[in-house]
C-alpha cells in the first residue's frame, strides 16, 4: 500500500500557491487582514461565518478552500473517513492576547471560543462535513516526520481514508499556512518526510 500527497496549498509572504502554481500574489507589506480578505473575495464561496473568525481560523479556512475547491472529499470517502491532523507553534496565542486585552471591559464569548487552536478543525469540518479523527499538536517548528508517520498510521490502520495534514501558524503579522491532502493510491508524490518537507519549504 502506498499513500500519496495528492494536493498541497502553501500560503506565505502574501503569496498563495496551489500545487506549486501561484494563485494570488500580493505585495509583502500588505497587512494580513487585507491580504486574507482579498483572498476570501477571490476564491472562497460566500460564507458569513468567515468574518466572525479570528485571524488564525481565517488563514486555515482560506487555505482549505484553495486545497479542497471542486473536490467532494466527504461524498467520495464518507464523512467519518476524513481526518484532520494539524499543528503549529503558537497555538491560539494571537487571539489569547487579544481576548485577554478585552476582559476588563467586556469578555466576549465570540472571541473566547477562538482561544483554542483546534477551533480551526471545527470550522473546516463544518464547512466540508468532515466527521473523522481530528487532532491538534504544538511543535516549536514544522515536524514532517511526526505528521507523516501519524497520517500513515491512521490510513494503514483504517482509521481514515484521507488525512489532511496542516501547519497553520499565526502570531500578529507573522504567519504561514501549509495544507496537504494525503490518500491511498492517489496521484502525486509519495507521503514521505522528504516530500512533505519539500512541499512545505516551497519553491
Amino acid at each position, binding site marked *: 500500500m502506498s499513500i500519496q500527497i495528492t494536493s498541497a496549498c502553501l500560503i506565505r509572504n502574501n503569496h498563495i500557491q496551489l500545487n506549486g502554481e501561484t494563485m494570488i500574489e500580493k505585495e509583502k507589506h500588505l497587512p494580513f487582514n487585507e491580504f486574507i480578505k482579498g483572498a476570501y473575495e477571490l476564491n472562497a464561496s460566500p460564507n458569513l461565518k468567515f468574518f466572525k473568525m479570528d485571524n488564525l481560523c481565517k488563514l486555515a479556512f482560506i487555505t482549505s478552500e484553495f486545497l479542497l475547491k471542486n473536490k467532494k472529499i466527504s461524498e467520495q470517502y464518507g464523512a467519518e473517513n476524513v481526518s484532520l491532523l494539524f499543528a503549529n507553534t*503558537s497555538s491560539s496565542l494571537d487571539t*489569547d492576547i487579544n*481576548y485577554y486585552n478585552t476582559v476588563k471591559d467586556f469578555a466576549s464569548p465570540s472571541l473566547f471560543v477562538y482561544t483554542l487552536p483546534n477551533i480551526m478543525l*471545527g470550522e473546516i469540518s463544518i464547512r466540508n462535513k468532515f466527521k473523522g479523527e*481530528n487532532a491538534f499538536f504544538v511543535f516549536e517548528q514544522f515536524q514532517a516526520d511526526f505528521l507523516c*508517520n501519524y497520517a500513515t498510521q491512521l490510513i494503514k490502520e483504517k482509521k481514515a481514508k484521507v488525512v489532511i495534514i496542516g501547519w497553520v501558524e499565526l502570531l500578529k503579522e507573522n504567519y504561514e499556512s501549509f495544507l496537504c491532502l494525503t490518500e491511498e493510491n492517489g496521484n502525486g508524490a509519495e507521503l514521505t518526510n522528504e516530500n512533505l518537507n519539500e512541499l512545505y519549504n516551497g519553491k
Partner: protein
Amino acid sequence: MKTVFAAHGNIITSLGFTAAENFAAMEQSRSGIQKFSNSNFLPFPFFASLVDDGKLNDKCSDFRNSKNYTRLEKMFILSISDVVEKSGLDIKNANTLLIISTTKGNINLLEEENYGGFSEKRLLLSEMANEIAHYFGMKNLPLVLSNACISGVLAIITAQRLISSGQYENIIVSGGDLVSEFTLSGFNSFKALSDEPCKPYDAERKGITLGEGCGTLLLTSNEKLLNGNEKKIVVAGGSVSNDANHISGPSRTGEELALAVNNALKEANCENEIDFISAHGTATAFNDEMESKAFNFSGLQDVSLNSMKGFFGHTLGAAGVIESVVTLETMKQNVLLPSLGYKNLGVPMPLNIIKQRETKQINTSLKTASGFGGCNAAVVFKAL
C-alpha cells in the same frame, strides 16, 4: 501490534496530591469544590476547585531550582515525579516520550505583571513542555496536544498508537490546566458557569464548575513496569470524531460521539461488555443532553456511569487524564464512585447514573470526552 499497559497514575487536585488520596476522598463523596471571592479572577464570588498554593510550594521545596518553574509546571513536575518513582521507569532512556496535554498552559502569566518574572516565551506550550522534559533530563522532545476538552483522552489514544506501532516503549501522558481569570471570564461570558457546585445530568443543573490540576499516566509495552499492579489493564481501543455542526455547541443528535464510542469499542473487542463509563458530564444543558443521546445510540444506557466533575470540577486539558486515572483505580479496586451532585435525571434519554459508592467487579471501562470545536473522543480500558 504491541500491547499497551496502563501502568501507574498520579492525580493532583484540590482533593490530594496522589491518585490514592484523590480516590479515598471520592469514596467518601468529598468534593474539592469551594466558594471563592477573588476579584482578580471574577468581580463576584464563584465556585471552583483550586489546588492550595501553600501545599503545592511545600511539596516542591526539594525540587532543584523550584523558583524557575511556573505554578502549572510545578504541578506537572510533581505529578510526573510520583509516577516515575512508583514505576521505576528510566525516564532518561531514548525509548521514553512525554506527551503534554493542555488547553491553556501558562496562560496565567498573561495576567501577571511582567509575566510573573518569566520570559514571554513561556506562554508557548512547547516551551513549557520543553522545560518539564528538561527537568527530568529526557532525551526526546515532548509532544504537545491541545485539542480543547478532549486533549487528555486524545493524548492517551495518541500514546497508545505510538506504543502499539513500536515507535516508543514508554509514554508518560501528563495533562494539566489552571483556573485563571482567563478561563473563568471566558466561561462566564458564555453564561456557562454554575452559581453552585456543578450537578452533571441532574434536572437542576446550572452549568460548569471549573477546576485545576494535573494528571499523569504511564503507558508502556514493558510489562515489568507494572510492578505492584494486581490487575493488568491495557488501553484496548480509542477513537476520535468531529460533530461538523457548531464550534461552541455540541451535536444535536449525539451521533458523532456515538461514532467515536462505537469505533473504540470495536477496536477493543468489547462491544457488549462494558462495565463502567466515565463520561464527560460538564453539567451544561446541551453537553449532558447530547451525551445521553449518544450513549443510547451506542446501546450503553444501562451501563453504570458517572461524571467526576462534581468532585474536582472541569479541569479542561487535564480532565481526560485525571478521570482516566480515577477510572483505572475504579477497575483496580472494583469500586464504583457516585456521580456527585446528581439526584434526578435531567437529560432526555435514560442513563444509569451511579448514586452511591458500590463494589462491583469492573473489567472493562469506557472514558469519553467532548469539547469546543465539535470534537469527541473515546478510549477503552480492559483488564487482561
